[in-house]
């Protein structure tokens, strides 16, 4: 199962997965914080139920993109028993390569005069 999806031909990341990675790029967070932050950033367009969230977390953990963080000092002091997640080096790699691909896609689209108006 621990197949590393780092081959150039890997599938693009799904919406929820990409958003979770983006949120974790700002630092380690626990599950509920991830969920809330994703919902805030997408203005509620992406809603992560507990099942969907941990399904994605499982896939990312098994794929080696994120890992559990052992925070010495939890954010609010009393929430020590919560599990925090952070990006692994591999996760950073995948995220940046994904973002690169996306921005290439957008650049390509911008070069198309028929689409330029809609993207402005």
């Amino acid at each position, binding site marked *: *199962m621990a197949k590393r999806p780092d081959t150039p031909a890997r599938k693009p990341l799904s919406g929820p997965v990409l958003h979770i990675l983006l949120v974790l790029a700002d630092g380690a967070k*626990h*599950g*509920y914080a991830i*969920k809330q932050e994703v919902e805030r950033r997408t203005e509620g367009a992406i*809603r992560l*139920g*507990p*099942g*969907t*969230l*941990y*399904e994605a*977390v*499982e896939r990312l953990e098994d794929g080696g993109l994120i890992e559990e963080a052992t925070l010495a000092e939890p954010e609010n002091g009393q929430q020590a028993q*919560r*599990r925090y997640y952070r990006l692994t080096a591999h996760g950073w790699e995948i995220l940046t390569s994904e973002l690169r691909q996306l921005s290439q896609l957008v650049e390509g689209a911008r070069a198309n005069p028929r689409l330029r108006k809609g993207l402005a």
Partner: protein
Amino acid sequence: MTPFSAHLYRLLRAVYPADFRRRYGHDMQRIFAADLERARAGGLMAVLSFWWQILGDLAASGWRQRAAQCRRVLRTNRGTPQLPRQKRRTEMDTLLQDLRYARRQFVRRPGFTAIAVISLALAIGGNSLIYGIIDGFVFHPFPYPDPDRLVAVGATFPRLSSETRYVEVLSPAEYEDIRTNRAFSSTAAFDLGNRNISGGNAPERVITALLLDDLFPVVAMKPVLGRGFTPEELGPNGPPVAIISHRLWQTRFGGDPAILTRPILVGGAAKSIVGVMPPGLLLIGTDLWLPWGGDTSAMPRDSRQFTILARLRGEASLGQANAELSALAERLDRAHGSEFKEYAGWRLTATPWAAALFQDLRPAAFMLMGAVGFVLLIACANVTNLFLARSTMRQRELAVRLALGAGRRRLAQQLLTESLLVGLAGAAAGLLLVLAGLRSADALIPAQFQLLDLHATVSTRVLLWSLALALGSGVLVGLLPAIQATRADPHESLKADGRSGGAAVGHRLRQVLVVAEIALSVVLLLGAGLMMTSFVRILRLDPGFDPRGVLTMRLTLPRETYGSEEATTRFFQRLVDDVRNIPSVTGAAVANQFPPSAPFTGQIEVEGAQASVSGATLPTAGTSIVSRGYFQTLRTPMLAGRMFDGRDRPGTQPTVVVNSAFVNRFLDGRPAIGARLRLAGRDGSNPWSEIIGIVADARNSGMTAPVRPEIFLPMETGRTAWNQLHLLVRSDRPAAALLPDVRRALAAIDPQQPVYNIQTLEEAMAVSSFQQRLSAVLLGTFAGVALLLAAIGIYGVMSYMVSARTQEMGVRLAIGAQRGAVMWLVLKQVLGLSLAGLTIGVGLLLAASRSLEGLLFGVRATDPLTIAVTAAVLGAVSLCAAWAPAARASRVDPVGALRYE
């Protein structure tokens, strides 16, 4: 509430594979709880949409996880021989297979499915609706945490009355004694009152609790803003402070976050607001809390105007609290019994607060739950009949599967899956009914509850109730067909063509079910008939006054502005005179109370009455203070003497009018006019009043209770000045048209004076019979539905019987039987079933008659007329239901039937 939802979600998480649950289950639970908390703040729709999302989430991600699990299992097992494949089939796979098969079965027979689902939807929806209403009003009316640990302390004084009362029954001295109860962790006492709030827009009248102690620890809630009262504020002559309700904060102050810095004018005096109660916390409808503020040590032991609430300590039980209370009652009787005679044999009882407030409603609540439960049983019997009929038709299919090696258990499981699916679909459709019903439930609720701000909602408990009913009825409906189908011998079924011995057993079973349906319908019909009779009897009662066209409202003059008794009397006199001058008004008066509910009583002493009456405790009588024109306005007939008039002025000989119940009870045949009585004072200092008139009895303790002896004192003499009176206006114009004129007349005297409790006399009467009306309406509806379901059941069984006996009918007709005789053959059987059902139903009702009698008025549970009408209705309905099958039997073509054989 929370543990329920959390538990439910924990159960639902079973859709995920075990390793996923082990890994993330705890965190998921935490997110679930946090989100639920947020949704709760958004109200009912938010909670429903939250659950909808959670179910969607469970379905989608659960499905993907299970699919991934299957792929993993297949991958690891790749390359092994195909043989163990059957072993690898998990319970889940079996269930999925059963579900798919059930779906195919239902799609193939949409008519059958629709009837089964709709029957259960009506019945489960009806049950959940009634449960929701009763739960919201009787079982869990308040938002307090651990509501069963919050108790009220009630008192029973056998010397005065046999009932146990909880509201305004104990004195500060008694409260001090009760506080020492070791089973209580915190206690509070409050006195209910009314206060005018002014300043800002319009003056307003609010129900006020005057507290002896901080109530927040007792109800276990925290103020939403600010704090509770400090001991210093609660002490004698504390600073002027107030706590307001969330409702008042929102409606009057627009939810101003800076409310704690704004003073509020209560009865003209400025008070600073120190706290806002949390939403939903309305103690008997109170919007304002004030410290009681007086010195309680000076109050006599029998000034009983306080309601006492307490919270049970940690592990202490209600029994412990009650044991200490009864010991205390005995102790107080020994210590003070010589001075306070009412202590003889008195009892103190602690009861959960909701039960204490709504004790009167419980019998009716349980009766309604039972009645609607019967409807569900009938619907289940009907759907069972459908399933039985279908499984008879499917006998061949089942026999083939058995013959091919399917286990009997597996077949039974398949049939149960089908019925459970029908049950769940029924519950889901029923929930729509609940949502629609709860919206209109408020319309059935009388004003006394609207004031308390109670609402029925689709709570988690209601959802769980629906789920339990769905599963229960699914099992109930599927059990008999499953047992019957798997008992069948495949050899017999395959040999015969469906009309085998097994079918005969099934038919007998179905007849038993129809008899059960009829019996349950009979119970409901009888109950509805008795309730309707009670309600009609109440409506037909002569109230002793004419309630049509009388508008009532209440006024309370603040003592700050109307300090003296003369000022109060002058105000009300002018108000009555001005209102009388409004066009179309034919009568106006003020009174401290009016029928059908006149709760104020006083102890009275009749001159020359026998010592036995006046010896120990003085008798009580209703004590009404009324203005001139009161009896004309209510149209209460005068039986003897005169009404109050210009002769009853301050400084003249005190006069009083009594009702005829008073004359019968206290005057022992002596001439009433000219006899004298007086209100009991502490030292017998009140002057004697002369009886100048006798009025007919008007229902003064509710429409269904006997009339209480009552005395009427003239307001105009000013001896008994009350600052809180009701205005009664009789007019032939509708109340809505009259009200603005009355308000104008009032504003011309004092623009700062609010009126409240505006209602017509007929509305006031409807409140006092609402329980019977509500029961009659609901039971009537249930009985109608039950009868319809029973008719469908009769039709189904008879149709089946006719088609199963077509040949027999053909033979009978061929050898010369009359068509009428063949019809009678079918109808006779129906009448037999109905008679059996009627007998059992009447028996059931008689067995329950003792518990029913308390809800009835003017009719016995064994009323022969009601039973006769029920039998007639039932007979007519069964004959109608059986007519079509019977007619079909009589039209059988003998030649065709015989040729088929």
